[in-house]
């Protein structure tokens, strides 16, 4: 085998592709597009569209209904649906959306053994991770931000003076984008990290929802059953994964914590909840990167 053949005539009709090649962004875009299609069930049968579109309807439905009522009835309806309240609805939808979308992005690649196909192309682990994360950020961001932006636009357009509304509530738009952006990143990274641990989508979904619900229940039970003098008791508020986004949103929109609630009694301010979200996101991001680096095609 080490000897060169004595002679060989090659048909030069075949040539290796030496033409222009697009860069890294093209490879990432290809995986992002495939991921978004997969999550939303696009170009697939109707059954795969039921869950994502039901959640999208749940996120957009109330805001569209509210704007419709305001258009019909006018300003007298008032603002019964405030931004922090709407974030409360969206946070539930976001959790459900991320819990179903993230496993859809990661688990089938392992379950259907296609990683060998991906990683024998010019795609690095970092490209793969960036693409999956970008796909999830796009769809989660759609649910986290767009309904609130529509609500804001609806409030402005149905106000007696749109210009006055925009001038007086410009800060709300900033708060919507900030809160929506933080929640998008938080839910996307956490859900992908959990999905990276399971090969089955159902296990990943159940794992994420279970950890949010169980941690909240556990934090409340431990907090309210332990003696008030117990050292470190107030830190139990950070154990409640499901409660952190709500406390953060309340702080962004200047809402006071319910005095009898876990957050109200724990005594931490809003920035502490933002820091908790950041730390959790960093930890989950590190876990995700570690899992992707160790994936065996």
């Amino acid at each position, binding site marked *: 085998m080490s000897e060169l053949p004595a002679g*060989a005539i090659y048909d030069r009709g*075949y040539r290796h592709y030496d033409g222009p090649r697009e860069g890294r962004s093209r490879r990432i875009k290809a995986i992002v597009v495939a991921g978004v299609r997969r999550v939303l069930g696009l170009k697939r049968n109707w059954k795969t569209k039921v869950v994502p579109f039901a959640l999208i309807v749940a996120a957009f439905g109330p805001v569209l209904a509210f704007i419709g009522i305001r258009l019909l009835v006018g300003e007298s309806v008032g603002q019964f649906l405030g931004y922090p309240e709407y974030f409360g609805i969206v946070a539930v939808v976001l959790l459900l959306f991320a819990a179903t979308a993230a496993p859809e992005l990661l688990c*089938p690649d392992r379950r259907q*053994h296609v990683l060998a196909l991906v990683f024998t*192309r010019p795609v690095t682990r970092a490209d793969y991770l960036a693409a999956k994360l970008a796909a999830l950020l796009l769809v989660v961001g759609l649910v986290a931000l767009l309904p609130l932006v529509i609500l804001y636009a609806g409030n402005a357009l149905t106000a007696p003076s749109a210009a006055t509304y925009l001038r007086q509530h410009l800060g709300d738009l900033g708060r919507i984008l900030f809160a929506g952006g933080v929640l998008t990143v938080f839910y996307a990274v956490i859900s992908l990290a959990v999905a990276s641990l399971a090969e089955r989508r159902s296990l990943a979904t159940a794992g994420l929802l279970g950890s949010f619900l169980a941690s909240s229940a556990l934090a409340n039970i431990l907090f309210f059953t332990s003696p008030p003098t117990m050292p470190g008791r107030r830190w139990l508020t950070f154990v409640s994964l499901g409660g952190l986004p709500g406390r953060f949103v309340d702080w962004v929109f200047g809402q006071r914590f319910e005095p009898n609630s876990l957050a109200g009694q724990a005594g931490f301010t809003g920035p502490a909840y933002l820091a908790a979200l950041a730390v959790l996101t960093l930890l989950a991001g590190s876990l995700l990167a570690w899992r992707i680096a160790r994936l065996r095609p």
Partner: protein
Amino acid sequence: MSQTATAPVVELRHFSKWYGDVVAVADLSFELRPGVTGLLGPNGAGKTTTLKAITGLLQPSQGEVLLFGRPLAGDPMLYRAIGVVPDGDRLYPRLTVRSYARLHADLQGLEQPATAADQAIAQVGMEALAGRRLGGLSKGERQRAKVAGAIVHQPSLLILDEPMTGMDPGQRARFIELVRALGQAGVTVLVSSHILGEVERLASQILVLVSGRLAASGDFHAIRDLMADQPRTVVVQADGARELAAGLIAMPTTVAVEVDGDRMQARTRSVQAFATELPRLARAQGVSLREVRTTDESLEQVFRYLVGRR
């Protein structure tokens, strides 16, 4: 992919891979150059481990794997020159053949991915199935779709792990034709397969792995010639076969001779000595030879010998 005139396309230098106490491949060294090479070996011989090392899907425990003279690790751009068809059903079942090939064209960053995808689909003869979902295709059709995804960027090196699994005879024939054409066009093709008859039709160069070690490499006819301890069977059709047999049995290299009418079957340790002596005897006895051929020149025979002597 640019390469020097002397650099082999693939080079393994003392490649070893072990998992805990289990040695999958030990001290494997070989080179691949343009043309089709068959990778053979019984189950567990280390074929897939070797292919995974060449395609960068696992790191050697020891030794080096070079592609185009460079290590693949840390250089993902080398994948622009490589096409890989892994074993097993590794596909997104809900993608159509066209969207699957298009995805790979996008991952390769081709300038006209749609055109490249259609060309690759045509190369594997799947134009009529281009709009069908992969999950709805037969196993053989899915294999061809995988090949389309692997050749969409016209690679210089094509790695095929058990590519003919599930293909019907017609599909196999077309596939063999395609791979041979690629090999003749200067592509370096490495095909792993259990189906020896088809590897024989695909590749004259072979690598045989047995128990994680290289048992033989090169042209299988040359390997057969090296199997000196294995007598070879020569069938002779002649008018005076019995008289010829009497002369041939006197040769020290002849192991046995069997005569049935005008047909003689001899087993010899030296085909060369046999080929020299047979015409001389025929001339001396006035016997006319109608046919002389060896019957155990098959790859399967070579393979069975190599596997059996471990």
